[in-house]
Structures are given as C-alpha cells and as structure tokens.
C-alpha cells in the first residue's frame, strides 16, 4: 500500500477498547465521531504518548510503531507535531520561546532564523516577546500550530483545534486553519466531534464510534453515501427512516414506507441489492423535499416523483431557513414520534407560500435525494 499514513491500533483500557484501522494519502484526515469514541486516544498512540497493545503506525514509509516487530519510536524521536486541545502553550515562555522550543538541538543562528520564519508566516510578527496569557484565542492557536510546525514534522496532529474558541471566532478560524494546513502541506490528522468542522478541514473523513472505525472515505463520498445507518446517525443526518424493499436493481431501489411506494437511486459505486421484503434504512435530506405550489395546477406525476401529502404539525424559525415537521395523511403511527419528515425551506419560500397559514401540502422528493443505507 502506498498510502502516506497507515494506522492500525488496538488499545484495551478498563471499560473501553480501541480497535481502529484506516489509511490516508497525505492531505488532512479528519477523525470524526462522538466524544469518547477513541479519536484522541488514536492521536496519543500516533504521537507515542500512549503505547498500543497491538498494531502498526506508518508515516511516509517510516514505521513509528509495530507491535509484531517490536518497534516503538519514543515521542521525542517521532517528529510528530501535536496541537493539543487548549493548546498547552508553555505559560512561562514567550511566543518566540514557545515556537522555538522544539529546536533546542539546532545551532542558535539557525534556530532564530526558523523561529522568525514561522512567526512571520503565521502572522505573529510583533508578538514574539508576549506570553501566552497576553494573546487572544486565535493567536494562541497559531502559536500552538507554529510550535508544532517549527520542527518540520512528518505529521501534524490536531486535537479539537477549534473547541477552545467562541462560536463566532470558530467559523473564521476554521477557514484560517484550512488555509494554513494546505499552505504548509504537512500531512495532518484533525480530531473533531463537529461534522461541519470535519467536512471543512478534512480531505478524508474517518468516522469513529465506540472505539471502532465505521467508515473512512473522501469527504464528499461520506456526505452522500454514509456506509450505514450507524454512520448516518453519528453524522446527525435528519430523516433516517426504515422501509421495506420492493425491488432492487443496480440503478434503482423501490421501497415501501408509510403506505407510499418510493423510488430511490441505487448507489452507482456499491450497487446494493437487498432481496425483496427485506428491511431497508434510508435518509431524505430535509433541504431536498419540494413543496408543490398550489397556484400552478395539479402536480405532474411524470415530472414530480415520490408524491405525498401531509400536514405541517410544527415549524421552527432558524433565521435564514424554516424547519417544518410534516405528518403524512397516511393513517398509523408517524415514523419519527409525532411526525414523518423534517423539511427545510428558505425564509423566502416560507413567506411566499404562506406556510404559517396554510398547513396542508403536497410534496415530492426526487429519487436522487433518497439515499439508501446498506445494512
């Protein structure tokens, strides 16, 4: 395998076992999953701060750990930069001393040149003599990045790099961080429990759950093709539903759900072919449900597929969008508590259609917007 990063780890702790395997081709890999899934534990093992019980860690062909071969490079010799959650800057050292901390073995002149270069590239010029307590959250993050990057690491590890920041700052620094990571080109692993952060920062997303990797895929693939219902739930995707297979072909899957016959596109890459009458999980993205305008005549079944009717039983204003909870007219208990589908419409649409007044709607879902989740 020619992947730049190969990780295979087993670590048993009281009440928790990490058993994870994934690989990545440079760029940024985002480890995503709920807290307590083993993401930070993985970073600790990669940095050599914690010894796995079994497994192998290879970075750019260099074996850092191999239980079978008895290789365990100590953290001091791994050349792995670690940006800790909360940054772990040395409070008794200045910005320049923090950035230069890992360069102690280099000649003084070279050390100073490197510190100056890193400080300038990260926009920290003028702050060299300040102490961490005199910096803003964003500046601290950059000092932590600079300190880890100054040693020219083979791999950069970032543990929840944005969680120490306030929400408004977080969005801005997410973009900064993305820019810095791609500019320096160092292979990086970012841990986060926020999917939008994982999606924004990672080229590849590795989904963790209960100490295992449940999916590892390029970020776009993950977004549209979660490997299972479990992954969809961890991603917090709305409208994860359960139906019954009517007929499956490599292109299409027909399924029965709440009295409707739905048609979905089968995944072209994995053409999943479950037998008829087997249970099937799928999800419908709330922003892809179309309400049929009543002033344009009746819906055209040739154009509008997967037609249904239902009542808005609740709605919530999120500022730029409205989230509607719709209960289908079909009798029987609704699929998600007291409603069947969550639908998202822009504010403008909500106002034009006067949804606050008019609650009963016909709507359609394109077959490409119904995503099947393999069992």
């Amino acid at each position: 395998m020619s992947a730049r990063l190969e990780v295979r780890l087993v670590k048993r702790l009281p009440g928790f076992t990490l058993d994870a395997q994934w690989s990545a081709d440079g760029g940024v890999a985002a480890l995503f999953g709920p807290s307590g899934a083993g993401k930070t534990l993985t970073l600790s093992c990669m940095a050599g701060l914690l010894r796995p019980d079994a497994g192998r860690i290879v970075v750019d062909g260099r074996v850092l750990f191999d239980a079978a071969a008895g290789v365990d490079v100590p953290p001091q010799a791994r050349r792995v930069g670690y940006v800790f959650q909360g940054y772990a800057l040395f409070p008794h050292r200045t910005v320049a001393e923090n950035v230069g901390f890992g360069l102690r073995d280099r000649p003084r002149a070279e050390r100073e040149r490197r510190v100056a270069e890193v400080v300038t590239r990260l926009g920290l010029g003028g702050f060299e003599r300040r102490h961490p307590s005199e910096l803003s959250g964003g500046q601290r993050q950059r000092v932590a990045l600079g300190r880890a990057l100054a040693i020219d690491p083979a791999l950069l590890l970032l543990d929840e790099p944005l969680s120490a920041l306030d929400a408004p700052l977080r969005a801005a620094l997410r973009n900064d961080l993305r820019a810095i990571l791609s500019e320096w080109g160092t292979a990086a692993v970012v841990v986060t429990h926020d999917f939008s952060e994982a999606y924004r920062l990672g080229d590849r997303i590795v989904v963790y759950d209960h100490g295992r990797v449940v999916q590892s895929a390029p970020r776009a693939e993950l977004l549209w093709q979660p490997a299972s219902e479990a992954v969809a739930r961890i991603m917090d995707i709305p409208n994860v539903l359960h139906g019954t297979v009517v007929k499956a072909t490599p292109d299409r899957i027909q399924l029965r759900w709440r009295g409707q016959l739905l048609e979905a596109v089968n995944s072209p890459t994995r053409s999943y072919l479950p037998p008829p009458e087997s249970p099937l999980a799928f999800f419908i993205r709330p922003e892809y449900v179309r309400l049929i305008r009543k002033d344009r005549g009746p819906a055209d079944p040739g154009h509008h597929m997967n037609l249904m009717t239902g009542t808005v039983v609740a709605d919530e204003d999120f500022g730029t969008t409205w989230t509607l909870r719709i209960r289908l007219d079909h009798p029987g208990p609704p699929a998600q508590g007291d409603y069947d589908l969550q639908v998202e419409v822009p504010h403008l649409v909500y106002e034009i259609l006067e949804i606050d007044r008019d609650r009963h709607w016909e709507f359609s879902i394109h077959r490409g917007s119904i995503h099947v989740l393999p069992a």
Partner: protein
Amino acid sequence: MTDETLSALALSVRVAVLATLANAFVGIPLAYVLARRRFRGRALLDLLVTLPLVLPPTVTGYYLIVLLGRRGWLGAPVYAATGWSIAFTWYAAVVAATVMALPLLVRTARAAIESVDRDLEKAAWTLGRSEWRTALEVTLPLARNGILAGLVLAFARALGEFGATLMLAGNIPGRTTTVPLAIYTAVQTGEETMALALVAILTVLSCLVLVVAGRLGARAA
C-alpha cells in the same frame, strides 16, 4: 543576651538552613516521583514520608534512634567502623529537623506538581525533550511557587523542632541545644526573661514565615 541564648539561636538557624537544603535535595525529587510516576511501593513511600506529620515527634525520634543510634541498624556498623555516632551531635539535630519537615515540603510541592497540566509535559516530549529535561524546564518551573511555599514551611518546621531533636540529639548546652530546647530549659529552671525573649523571637520568625508562604501560595494558585 547571654552566650547560651546566642549559641542556641545560631545553632537553630544553622540547623534549619541545612535541614531546608536537605529537604530541597530529597523532597523535590520525591514530590516529583510521587506526583508523576506509578511504581510498586509508591503508596508505602508516601506513607513513610507523611508519617512524621501525624506521629508524636518523640515516636519519630525513637525510630531515628533505632535507625541511627549507637546500637541502631545503620548507626551500629558506623560506630563499629569509626567509633563515631551521630547521636548527641548537632548533625543529629539536622537529621531530626529534616525528617520532621519533609512531609510539609513533599505534600505542598507534590500538590503544586500535580496541578501542572500534563499536556504541557506531553507537548515537551513531542518537541524532543526527555522526561528529565521536561521536569527541569517545564514541570518544576511551573510548580515553583508551590515548591518555594513548601520550602518556607519546611524551614519553619525545622526551626521549631523539639521532640525528635531531643530524642536523637539530646539537650547539651552550647552543642545541641536549639531555641525550642533552650526555651524548655529556661522555663524549667525559672529563667523567665530568657524564655520570654526566645519565645518572642520564634513567634516573630514564624509569623514572617507564614506571611511569606501565604504570598507564595497565593501566587501559585
């Protein structure tokens, strides 16, 4: 002031300073090891170091005699080889004061070391520092105020040590009589003025020490 008073004061200060130095050399590494390492016998070591804090000083002194006295486990071979024993010398006062003060330093310094964020140490390791260099460059500097506060408390304890000193060093005027022992003797023999003067000196010194330790402690927190 009489010669006896002066010599007691000088001896007390000398004993307290040396005991504090000994505490720094033994107590700081001990505090670090207890705070950061997990090893067999750690609980036992912790117990041994802390015991003098709760035992009556005379009991600690008795153990010191058993260990270092002329017929003690360590003292007997030394006496057999050299004809010298530490018992009833002023060195014994230093040893007694050191042992009695150690738990104060170790407990204070250990708490300060434990409060240093472990991620800082891990960061230093990933940046190439050995555990030893990390302790010197990161952990101990950041625990500095707590360690200094512990040293100040140890100094105060050493200055005021009575029971264990009496057991191991005795009360030989001009040789092993420290200020607390001189106060005891003065009261026993009715030399009220001398007792009062020494009491006043020790009280003022102890107050000073508490103020200094309090300030260091506040800065450490």
